[in-house]
């Protein structure tokens, strides 16, 4: 029931072939050129791209903080789909799951990213998938409750 948990979904249409995009998301020397939330440097990238293989990336933010997301590949379908777990080394956050999906689109690639929390036991028991609706209301909710 992962779809009942909150998730971030981002879709981008990219003017480059799925093969090029696939290389950029799986080859460490290319991963180093984009992986990180600001213009701070990516210091290292390791990727053993096969089910059960690990990745580990270290990047430094412009404010000097270093972070190390790491995880294990769950699903590897070249030029189509890459699924991996995600955790921050040394941080207390529980594991989450990232899916990259690539589809040919108009000579380029439609790229979909989904980052979702993994279900815990209680969430699995729920058969309700109404998250999207609640999240639409949340900003109002939080504002009103202030």
């Amino acid at each position, binding site marked *: 029931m992962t779809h009942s948990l909150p998730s971030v979904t981002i879709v981008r249409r990219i003017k480059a072939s799925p093969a090029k995009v696939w290389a*950029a998301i799986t080859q460490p020397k290319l991963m180093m050129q984009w992986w*990180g939330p600001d213009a701070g440097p990516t210091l290292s990238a390791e990727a053993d791209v096969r089910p059960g293989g690990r990745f580990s990336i270290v990047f430094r933010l412009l404010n000097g903080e270093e972070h190390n997301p790491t995880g294990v590949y769950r699903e590897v379908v070249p030029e189509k789909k890459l699924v991996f777990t995600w955790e921050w080394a040394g941080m207390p956050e529980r594991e989450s799951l990232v899916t990259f999906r690539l589809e040919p689109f108009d000579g380029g690639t439609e790229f979909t990213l989904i980052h979702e929390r993994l279900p815990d036991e209680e969430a699995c028991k729920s058969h309700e998938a109404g998250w999207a609706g609640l999240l639409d209301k949340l900003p109002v909710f939080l504002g009103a409750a202030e």
Partner: protein
Amino acid sequence: MVKYQASGMDRTFSALADPTRRYVLLRLKDEPGLSVSELARPLSLKLPGMMKHLDVLSDAGLITRTKAGRTVSVHLSVGPMREAMAWLKRYERFWTASLDRLVALVEEDSER
């Protein structure tokens, strides 16, 4: 990056995974201070059933209960909800910025 307690976040998400509990939160947003029986009535829930849901919400820190005489009134407490939203916003920011760079990288490469 924002740091927070993982266990608290998990309780928040679990508590929110149930439609009855979401209904309770949304009603409390509009009508703070409702009593347990007022919350239970439209759902045709018996009081013990509603109490169980309220216990889950209370453990997750989403509501507070105060007792006046024989009436328990229920109020929202928004801290954990903010944490859940912070999780979402953090990753949205992270990936939006990273993907901007990914797109620039592969598109530049394609034009060569």
